[in-house]
């Protein structure tokens, strides 16, 4: 009898332990207690600088992050995702020191929500190009060729930054585009071009460059008028605002700019006229 009572109680007791463990965990991840958590014993110097950057920046930021750590001794924690995702994470209370979305409207939204410090600096810009599968099976030569409905054309949806720019560029060039698909992200456009499912897609120069040999790039004259700018800002609630500022300075420095240029970005207006 006693034994069976105990075996019956045991799972319940275990559960209580588990439940109380659960109940505690939200506290330990609450904003204030995080700095004093186990992996960061020294809040002033030991905590990594948290950088929220657009997915398109990830590859180019990796070497710069390394350089930053060598210079300052501070570790950098880089979170890369779509700009809208990053913004909604910040809105929901995610902690970061630096925010670098892939377009200015996203930064304006962050500004409107008082998430960032008032000064944002443009670190780089990007222009729209035509990406075609290697070999150019659709024999695309200019933007005007894309008006031909015979070609499978893929764009970003107008709601997505790259789609907005595509519309502006097409309008400036006086070309009526008839897309076969309006994708949700530039990655999806590139995916359709890489697999040669589409004859052409409009993407940013850096995306086309990243795709390597699978994709050929055709420049669009009118696109220079509609550069897409990458702004960077220190978060209003940054725990390490000075270090965050230094990180942005590094991006604007000569070595930062040359790294960005190598990845296909155009230089920031402040850095070189």
């Amino acid at each position: 009898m006693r034994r069976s009572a105990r075996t019956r109680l045991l799972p319940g007791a275990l559960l209580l332990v588990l439940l109380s463990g659960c109940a505690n965990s939200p506290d330990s991840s609450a904003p204030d207690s995080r700095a004093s958590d186990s992996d960061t014993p020294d809040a002033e110097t030991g905590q990594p600088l948290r950088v929220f950057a657009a997915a398109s920046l990830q590859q180019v930021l990796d070497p710069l992050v390394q350089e930053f750590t060598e210079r300052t001794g501070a570790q950098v924690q880089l979170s890369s995702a779509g700009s809208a995702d990053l913004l909604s994470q910040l809105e929901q209370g995610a902690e970061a020191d630096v925010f670098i979305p892939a377009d200015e409207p996203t930064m304006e939204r962050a500004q409107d929500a008082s998430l960032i410090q008032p000064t944002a600096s443009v670190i780089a810009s990007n222009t729209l190009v035509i990406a075609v599968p290697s070999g150019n099976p659709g024999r695309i030569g200019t933007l005007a060729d894309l008006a031909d409905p015979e070609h499978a054309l893929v764009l970003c949806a107008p709601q997505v930054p790259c789609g907005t720019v595509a519309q502006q560029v097409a309008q400036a060039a006086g070309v009526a585009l008839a897309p076969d698909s309006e994708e949700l992200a530039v990655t999806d456009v590139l995916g359709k071009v890489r697999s040669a499912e589409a004859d052409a897609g409009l993407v940013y120069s850096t995306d086309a460059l990243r795709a390597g040999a699978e994709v050929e790039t055709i420049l669009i004259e009118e696109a220079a008028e509609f550069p897409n700018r990458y702004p960077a800002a220190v978060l209003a609630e940054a725990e390490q605002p000075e270090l965050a500022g230094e990180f942005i300075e590094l991006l604007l420095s000569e070595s930062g700019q040359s790294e960005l240029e190598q990845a296909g970005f155009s230089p920031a207006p402040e850095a070189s006229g």
Partner: protein
Amino acid sequence: MSRRPAGGAALPRWVLIPAAAAAVFILLPILALLTRIELAELPSLLSSEAALSALWLSLRTAVAATLLCTVLGVPLALVLSHATFRGSGILRTLILLPLVLPPVIGGIALLNTFGRQGLLGESLELLGVQIAFSTAAVVLAQTFVSLPFMVIAVESALRGVQKEVMEAAVVDGAGPTQLLRSIVLPLILPGLASGVVLAFARSLGEFGATIAFAGSLQGVTRTLPLEIYLQRETDPDAAVALSVLLILVAVVVIGLTRPRTAPDALR
């Protein structure tokens, strides 16, 4: 058969605690979603042309995918449940792969199969079939991710069919087709129904494979989940409102199929 055993097999009380935790875990986030909705704006958000065309497309494609899943999945489940051939175990495992595969990768796999440069691409092009960027591609993507649900549901129902019943029918002179039609199918109807519900629900929510394989064009390939993702880019409130629409559709469909049939289908 559909009644639970009463009295004797009562549940231990402690089960209630994790059970409640599970229910809360599922319902609380959905509740949190509902609290974000501005009721006054709901009608205008839901009646936009983009929303309606996405809803209509989602319904059409999910129904088509469910039909395909039924036509293809039930025979496969029948074969697997009878399987004595070598490698049938491996086949059973492989067929479940779409469940583990990230849907985006499923979409890429479909692209490599039915795409212009895919395995079957050239043959399809010769036949004049263009799947890329068409509604058919959406249905294919949905069928790919949903088919395993149908197969699992029907196969586990088939295992519940008692051998004696079938043997008795054979003794009474029933041929294979007659056995299937008048004995097996009626017996597995509950399992089939839950297969239909699962496949339909999975098709309705399908996102990753569709975006990677079919593309996204209003009225042609942009289903409700894609529209929701797109809206989130500029108007998160509209995205939430559309999600509620998706939930409502799912609840209605599951409600229509479920009450009479499902409870003992997935035991």
